[in-house]
């Protein structure tokens, strides 16, 4: 990430904390910073998402063109389904995050399961301590992936201004 964007993000983080703490004028300051930085941060984050996707699809498809293309088509479909129609820039960013997270989890799972494959050449196997470390990376990636889905759902719910849904089910048991 470029130094300028990192600075912008750091500024947004600080302003969010100040506004949340109830500092006078904090929210207005944050609002103007969000309006100023958002397009650049979203553009840079999308760039990162593209790069991440290229790296991950190459790894999972072992640079096989057909597999790479199929995977890209699947990702495009996922993106379309998740973002839906008239998605806001924030929703698009979160969609990118969900798709990249899904792909990373798939790649890591593939790499780890290769370690357990019986016929894998001995030279490509790693000791159990490293498999454990890899599993930790996978665990963290899975956690982030699920958190992103929750975040996207939360943003949508808040955008819709819908009250939290509550479903009550009544079951009547008739005694005959």
């Amino acid at each position, binding site marked *: 990430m470029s130094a300028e964007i990192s600075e912008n993000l750091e500024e947004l983080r600080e302003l969010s904390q100040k506004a949340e703490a109830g500092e006078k004028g904090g929210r207005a300051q944050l609002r103007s910073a969000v309006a100023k930085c958002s397009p650049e941060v979203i553009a840079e984050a999308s760039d990162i998402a593209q790069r991440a996707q290229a790296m991950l699809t190459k790894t999972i498809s072992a640079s096989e063109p057909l597999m790479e293309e199929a995977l890209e088509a699947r990702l495009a479909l996922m993106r379309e389904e998740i973002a839906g129609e008239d998605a806001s820039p924030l929703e698009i960013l979160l969609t990118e995050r969900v798709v990249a997270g899904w792909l990373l989890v798939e*790649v890591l799972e593939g790499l780890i399961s290769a370690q357990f494959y019986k016929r894998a050449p001995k030279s490509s196997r790693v000791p159990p301590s490293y498999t454990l470390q890899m599993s930790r990376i996978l665990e963290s990636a899975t956690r982030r992936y699920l958190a992103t889905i929750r975040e996207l759902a939360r943003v949508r719910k808040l955008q819709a201004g819908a009250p939290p849904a509550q479903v009550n089910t009544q079951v009547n048991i008739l005694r005959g």
Partner: protein
Amino acid sequence: MALERRDGNLYYYRSVRDGEKVRKVYWGSGELARIAHEREIMNRALREHERRESAKELERMEALAAPVLALSEAAEILVRAHLIACGYHRHKGEYRRARGEARST
């Protein structure tokens, strides 16, 4: 591990850790000592090779995860900033709208 030559004979010793101390334990002499020594050198080289391979594999995984983590962090900060700027606040991990604030995100 050490191969020692004394009075024209070969003796092989292994180092064994005993708590804080390292003891030198006699293993064998003559041709057997040489074979044991060479086998140990080979095993050590193999372990070193495995360690390097594992580190490389781990580095590869971390490199794959790095851009996704960067994206994740950026999105997290931006979403939080957007929501707070739009009048929401966090309450026990949930975002709620403060009274009298704008609704749209």
